[in-house]
C-alpha cells in the first residue's frame, strides 16, 4: 500500500530536518564561544543527508537518513583580546568558526522542507481517510 509508505518517507524527512534544526541551534548558541587554542574552539557542525531505500524492489519510496554530523573545517578566527578570561599567554582568543548567515539560511531551508513534508503527510492522510470511507 503506497499511501502508507508515505508516512515512513515523510517521517524520515521530518526527523532529518529536525536534526538539522538542532545543529543550527547549537551552532548559533555557540557562535560567540571563545577558546584559548584553535583545537578547543567550537566548530560549526552540519548533518550529512543520505537517501535510504526501503527495499531493493521498491525504489520509489526513498526516505532520508542523517549518516553523520561533520564539523566545519574552516580555521577559527584568532582575535587579540587580552582582557578575555580565555586569552592565551599572548593575549589572543580563538572564536568559533560559525557563520551566522549560513546558519540562518540553513534554518529557513530546514523549516521550509519540514513544512513541505507536513503538507504531503496531511494530503496523503486525507486521501487515506476518504478511501476508507468509500461507499458509505
Amino acid at each position, binding site marked *: *500500500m*503506497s*499511501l502508507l*509508505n*508515505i508516512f515512513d*518517507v*515523510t517521517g*524520515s*524527512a521530518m526527523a*532529518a*530536518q529536525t536534526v*538539522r534544526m538542532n545543529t543550527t541551534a547549537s551552532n548559533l548558541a555557540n557562535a560567540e564561544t571563545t577558546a584559548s587554542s584553535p583545537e578547543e574552539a567550537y566548530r560549526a557542525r552540519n548533518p550529512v*543527508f*543520505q*537517501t535510504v531505500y526501503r527495499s531493493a524492489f*521498491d*525504489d*520509489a*519510496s*526513498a*526516505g*532520508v537518513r542523517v549518516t553523520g554530523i561533520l564539523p566545519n573545517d574552516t580555521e577559527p578566527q584568532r582575535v587579540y583580546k587580552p582582557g578575555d578570561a580565555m586569552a592565551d599567554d599572548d593575549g589572543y582568543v580563538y572564536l568559533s568558526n560559525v557563520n551566522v548567515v549560513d546558519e540562518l539560511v540553513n534554518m529557513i*531551508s*530546514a523549516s*521550509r*522542507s519540514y513544512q*513541505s*513534508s507536513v*503538507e*504531503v503527510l496531511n*494530503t*496523503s492522510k*486525507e*486521501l487515506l481517510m*476518504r*478511501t476508507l470511507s*468509500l*461507499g458509505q
Partner: protein
Amino acid sequence: MPLDINAIFDTHAKSLALGSQRIGVLAANIANADTPNYKARDIDFKAAMRDAGPEPVRMRGTQPGHFGVGDREQTEVLYRIPDQPSEDGNTVDAQRESAAVAETALRYQASLSFLNMRIRGLKLAITGSR
C-alpha cells in the same frame, strides 16, 4: 447486457493505485529535497493510465526474453529533467513537487467521487429506491 462489476470499477481503481504510487514517488522527492546528488523522479500518469486501459495492447513474444506491454505490476519510475540543476547534484524542485502532489491528490479525489457515485447508483439499483 450482463453486469460486469469489475468493468465498472476498473478504471478508477487503477487511477487510485496509480495516484497513490505517484504521491509516494513525489513524497520521496520532497523528503530528499536537501540530499546531495539525489535525482528527482516521477511517473508519467497519462502514459500509465493508457497502459492500464480496459484492453491493453499486448505484444506477441516470440523469444523467451521478450517483455509484454501490459504486464507490469508497478509503473515505471522515470527521472525528471531538471529546469535548474543545483550545485550539489540534487534535481528536486520543491514548487514543482508540491504542485504535482496537489494535482495528483485532486485526481485521486475525483476518482473517489466517481467510485462513490457508482456505488450509490448500484445500491439504488439493488434496493430499488428505498
